[in-house]
């Protein structure tokens, strides 16, 4: 890893003379935990007998996930009309949910890739779970654009497959860009996640007591032995993937925002969307990471590894991105007014005060007002409050997508063709079920894979510093 101890011989002499006082760096691992403790802690989660809470939660999650299954089965067998869509609102909850889940899927790769490149060591405590969250969120997201089409059995036409009629997909369509952006993002994130896990899987394999565990983790560990050459290759590959993922973090949500920005619907057709969407995605992603990590930390007593410093950092990122999002909302209004275009002006006034004003104000209060509480240290230290605020952010970001998608379509150019969209029970259940689907995957991850990157945590722990003792 990039962390290399500094030798005193390389220090400039002046430093010895003036003897500056070291600013205390925040400890990333508290209570002087050693390597063995970390290994025991992380592997223990996987090795301990399945706890009752896990079984109960898993059963519940499976049940909830079945809602999506049933909902999609009904949808495909009967038609898109089982959803609340209508003229003029051709996109409803499905696209809202898609953008929502893709947004959540941003934090993982941001944490693992961008923070890695920026040498933010604190990321190691949370990156594994965040990456898992990313992948599962993208899986949830993928369901919606796939199934929202009228004829899902022809969805493969979106792939550029050579065919005898020489018909290609329409490469100018943002939806086509989506197909490439999301699938690339998913592939790279999965590779990144899995590759980072290989040393830890090796550790679990080595500790395995039963033959089947050994077999299972042997396959997953890809023959990891922890040799120097393997470590060297691993580090290089990790860095390369981090470099590769970084633009993807920005591109995916940029392209998702193009679905809207490239169209000509007032309220969609704005150039601010790419940065605004990316900020919103990071915002919601971090909120989701906190939503998941705080309970896990409590359950598995990971307070030493995921400590107040980590939580503080994440809260601050949420505060920063939340403010950016708030700024974007304000900018939209300014530009609409400044443009002098009556259609644009109306679209934004209508958002705030029209038939969907309730959704708009839920969005504003959850996304702009609530995160401002993170200015206060007391709030950041109150983890129940942090968790609740993060839930608000998640709700707010869902509403942001709802506001953008639905209000713009419901009242666009011709007043004769205005309408009002509301979801049906099928919409609601299908979305609800994706939380179950997500939980099923996440619980499986928690139960069978290393929740924390042991190797990386050890690298940033005080014990890894030869000068620590």
């Amino acid at each position, binding site marked *: 890893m990039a962390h290399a101890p500094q030798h005193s011989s390389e220090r400039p002499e002046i430093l010895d003379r003036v003897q500056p006082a070291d600013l205390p760096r925040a400890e990333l691992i508290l209570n002087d935990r050693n390597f063995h403790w970390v290994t025991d802690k992380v592997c223990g989660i996987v090795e301990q007998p399945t706890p009752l809470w896990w079984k109960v939660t898993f059963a519940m999650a499976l049940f909830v996930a079945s809602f999506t299954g049933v909902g999609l089965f*009904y949808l495909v*067998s*009967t*038609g*898109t*009309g*089982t959803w*609340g*869509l*209508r*003229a*003029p609102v*051709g*996109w409803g909850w499905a696209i809202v949910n898609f953008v929502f889940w893709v947004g959540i899927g941003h934090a993982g790769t941001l944490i693992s890739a961008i923070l890695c490149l920026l040498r933010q060591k604190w990321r190691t405590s949370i990156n594994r779970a965040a990456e898992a969250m990313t992948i599962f969120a993208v899986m949830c997201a993928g369901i919606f654009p796939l199934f*929202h*089409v*009228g*004829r*899902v059995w*022809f*969805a493969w*036409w*979106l792939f550029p497959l050579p065919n005898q009629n020489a*018909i*290609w*997909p*329409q490469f*100018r*369509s*943002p*939806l*086509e860009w989506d197909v490439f952006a999301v699938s690339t993002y998913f592939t790279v994130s999965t590779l990144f996640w899995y590759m980072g896990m290989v040393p830890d899987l090796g550790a679990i394999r080595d500790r395995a007591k039963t033959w089947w565990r050994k077999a299972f983790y042997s396959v997953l560990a890809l023959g990891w032995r922890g040799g120097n050459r393997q470590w060297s290759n691993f580090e290089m590959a990790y860095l390369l993937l981090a470099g590769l993922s970084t633009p993807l973090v920005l591109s995916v949500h940029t392209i998702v925002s193009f*679905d809207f920005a*490239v*169209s*000509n*619907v007032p309220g969609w057709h704005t150039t601010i969307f790419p940065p605004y969407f990316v900020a919103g995605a990071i915002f919601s992603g971090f909120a989701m990471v906190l939503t998941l990590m705080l309970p896990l930390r409590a359950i598995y007593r990971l307070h030493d590894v995921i400590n107040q410093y980590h939580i503080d950092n994440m809260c601050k990122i949420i505060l920063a991105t939340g403010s950016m999002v708030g700024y974007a909302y304000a900018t939209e209004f300014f530009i609409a007014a400044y443009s*002098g*275009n*009556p*259609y644009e002006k*109306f679209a934004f*006034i*209508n958002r705030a*005060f*029209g*038939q969907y*004003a309730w959704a708009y104000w839920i969005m504003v209060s959850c996304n702009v007002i609530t995160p401002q509480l993170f200015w206060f240290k007391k709030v950041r230290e109150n983890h129940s409050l942090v968790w609740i605020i993060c839930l608000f952010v998640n709700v707010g970001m869902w509403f942001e997508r709802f506001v953008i998608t639905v209000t713009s*379509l419901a009242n*666009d*150019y*011709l*007043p*004769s*063709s*205005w*309408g*009002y*969209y*509301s979801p049906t029970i099928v919409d609601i259940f299908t979305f609800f079920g994706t939380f179950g689907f997500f939980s099923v995957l996440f619980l499986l991850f928690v139960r069978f894979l290393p929740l924390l990157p042991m190797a990386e945590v050890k690298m940033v722990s005080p014990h890894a510093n030869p000068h620590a003792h």
Partner: protein
Amino acid sequence: MSKKIFNHPTLQEGEPTGPSYWRSLDERNKSPEFRTRAEREFLDGASTINTVERREFLMLMGASFGLAGLGLAGCREPRNHTLPYSKQPENTIPGVATYYASSFPGEWANQPLIVETHQHRPTKVEGNTSHAPNGSASSKFAQASVLDLYDPERAQFSVGANGATLSIAAAREALVQLASEAKSNSGEGLVFVARPSTSPTRARLVQLIQSALPQSRFVEYTPVSQNGAELALGARPLPDYAKARRILSLDADFLGSGDASVEATRAYASGRRADNADEAEQMTRLYVVESTFTLTGAAADHRLRASTSHISALAALFAAEVLAQTGNNDEATLLLSKVSGVNVDQNWIKECVTDLVKAKDKSLIVAGAHLSADAHRAVFLANAALGAAVRYATVPAASKHQLSDLVSNVPSTLVILGGNPAYDAPANVPFAKLVKAAKKVVRLGYHGTAFDETSALVKSVGGIVLAASHYLESWSDGRTVDGTYVPVQPMIEPLFPSLSDLDVLAPFAGSTKDAHGLVRETFQEISQDKSDSAFAAWLAEGVLHKSGYGIINPLVNLDGLKPFPAPQLSFDALEVRILPSVHTGDGMYANNGWLAEAPDPMSKTAWENVILISPKLAAKLDIEPRQGVITRLGALNGKINEMVDGRLIARIAKLTLDGVTIQGPLFIMPGLADFTLGLQLGFGRSVAGRVATRVAERLQGKVVGNGFNVYPFVSVDSPAFRSGVRLELTGETAPVCNMQDHWSVEGRDVVREGNAEDMRHNQNFAKLGIDGHAPAVYGKDEKLSPAEKAINTPRGNSAYEHPDHTVAPNMTVWRGHESEFPQLQQWGMSIDLNTCTGCNACVTACQAENNIPVVGRDQVLKGRNMHWLRLDRYFFDGRDQVSSAIPEDPQVTFMGVACQHCETAPCETVCPANATVHDDQGLNTMAYNRCIGTRYCANNCPYKVRRFNFLDYNKREAGHYYEGPLGPAKLPKDPTDLPQMQKNPDVSIRMRGVMEKCTYCVQRIQEAKIQAKVNAKDSAGIRVVDGTIKVACQQVCPAEAIEFGDITDPRSRVAKAKASSRTYGALTYLNTRPRTTYQAKLRNLNIRMPGANRVPLSRKEMAGRESHGKPHETSGHPQVEKNSH
């Protein structure tokens, strides 16, 4: 069978021949060996030509069969082969439609039609251009009548007195027996009840019956009579709407309802075309006095709201003013003396009449059929004094007997022909009692006994119920409004054993002829020509020219003039105006899905009727919709009706009149007279088919008609309006099916209007609004002709790629000859908002032509109607600021919106599957097969014209959409399934999950192109001649508001329309460059009228709201001027 030998014709003496060639000397010598060889089918040794001997062959075959048997390859299902026509019927070319002339029977006038048949199935009707007054236009009822032919709930067999099925032969026998019984007592107690008909053959039979059975009575009854003027004057007024330049309509909805509305609209529209200031000044000016908001009122330049019960009195006032101004003071004084209690702006009358008088013989007053006889007389005298553009025709006398007479003189034998009197008889005629009292009842009904009140009643009392034929499958005849004699010709053998009214009457008239024979007899009588060719010519052309009614000058005076009633109306004594519904007429079309789903042009409601109430009354009842913050902020005009979650939620009210109560949803209607409630007939059926009844209840086995029944309020004396009604709110609410949520255009420049003054000031008055500010999308080619723009306009920095119009499709073949071949034609459309009256015929015609499914009330409530073409209706009251007030006296503009076929179509670039693409003739085409249904195109269409098949509307019945594959399929295995037979075979049926939209009737374009190529043969003249292609909406439009054709040909009608200074494109600032453009509406205001605005109200509103389109009085047209240099 021996072979037929065809010999070459032998050469005649002296016939010129060319050089003769020969293949061998034998041929030249004509040797016998050669001749036998030439005539033999196979050469010698042909059987052994492969050198396989018979034994060898059998051996090989045996082995093959053995092997084949081993593999059990022979065990497969027997194949069923389809067979082509073994004997092709004459005049039938598969895939090519055949057209026949016929006419759509009305009660007052027939509409001449051309019927399109595919493989002998009638699929579509069009107006018969041989009859000039209606051109190619027809009404929406005529359009929808085709669907009735294939109504699965029509009577499919007759039912005898014992309830058993009756064959046609047995039915005829029963009629003959009934006739002979009647003969024995000269028809004592025998009563026929029928709907009025224009058929001379029927009239002849009725006369024969009268002479054969003098005691019998023939009663004609209709809930909505159109002959009020005829009864009063003894002659039918035939107004000349084309000649008249100043028209005053007194509650006469001549543009919107009645059998002559098509011809009237066509004539009226011809006087409303104007492309410069002079023409605009010469344009027809329409004054309307009415209570409810009709299409005529919507077209009016000046509209006076008045209660229906006062309009007879108002007619007297107008007539008196005309007479006074033309020097007939005695009559004027007499009329004035009979009017009291009417509150009206005298100035309105005075200025209006002054204008009429000034126009002299180019003026016209028309009176609604429901006005009193005295009012008709007064109007007649006023017209006479004006020398108005109206003639009077002698028409056959109406039936002597009234339905109400039967109450006192009860029939013993009742023959009910058509109609549905058990449902639609006036409340004070207990028709069910009459039926029960009669000893014998015969009923000829179109719908099955389970789907029609009268048939069900007759069946229950043990009467005979005969299945009636549709007009497209039976012989008859009729007359148009001016009396022109037209045939009703069958297009198809009756689908079911059924009879027509002529078949039923013939035995009583003592005739043994069939309907065809009877019509032929009548034709000979009328045409005075017995030849087969004359009859054939009449059937072929569909019109007998110069057969109109005689023109007379009726003698009318004011003798015995009674005082004009003008009841005092108040909140406690309201008035109801009873009108036929635009969906079901008087209930006749209740089971027609196209009509049920075609929205009411004014209220935009569908599938049900509502109680229309005025904004003032709504304010009094405190039922105005709640207004949101956005209204108070000044961003959006208030609603006129309560919308909750996109659904119109109406209050339920109870109306009471003389102890009778009806209950229905209230709909606040701008422009309604203050104390008038508008009611529509034809709903609330108690026994009816699947379209006329609610789906949810039907699935539970109950029959609940759509809407509510208004007939309890219809009385014999006053079928069209009643006063003294009390209204009470019940506290309940109900969702009402509505297709347009918002009434105001919100100051947007989508609709543009002007007047003569505007045109004089600035020809380009229509080019205003945001488009005036937007950069010129054509860049430096702004000045190019439309043709040049269409073909080679630069893309103007557009993000959208544009199809290359310059290269012909098979250029490689033409290389080097490009100049010999014409450039591809570029299709475009122009819609004239000035002549469009909003009649909805185009909506129904489009549905018929393009196999557009009916989705049902439930789906319309969810906002999923599939119409490719819709008529947007906007109200304007000149407000320059946003307000929540409901417009009380608005102007109306209709705007037909279908796919605009944008040259840089926003829908095309966003479709990820490439399913919607541009073709090289400028069509924005939709490849249904390629569509996967992302709906992105619909989102990105600024005109919102794309329609998505959310559910399997074509495959499943309403009520079963949500059952998925478990639901019953609409398309049964049986290919003779009725509704399927209506489908246009040239248009594909769309499945669920697929987007669809207007195609510019691409099937008609293709047909014309193929025909042009066939005609061109080897020449380069493959261009389709202008006018050959008529798209469905254009063809049906009575106002001829729609032009379609090649926009690159400056001589084409569409190019000329587009060259008009009134032309503008909607939302063109988006650089969509639509191929469909609009011609701005012109208002023709009489500035002296009270309340007249110099500026059309929509423009006034636009100027106030968005500072666009400021009227020139205040600021001129800076943006337009900027645009022009």
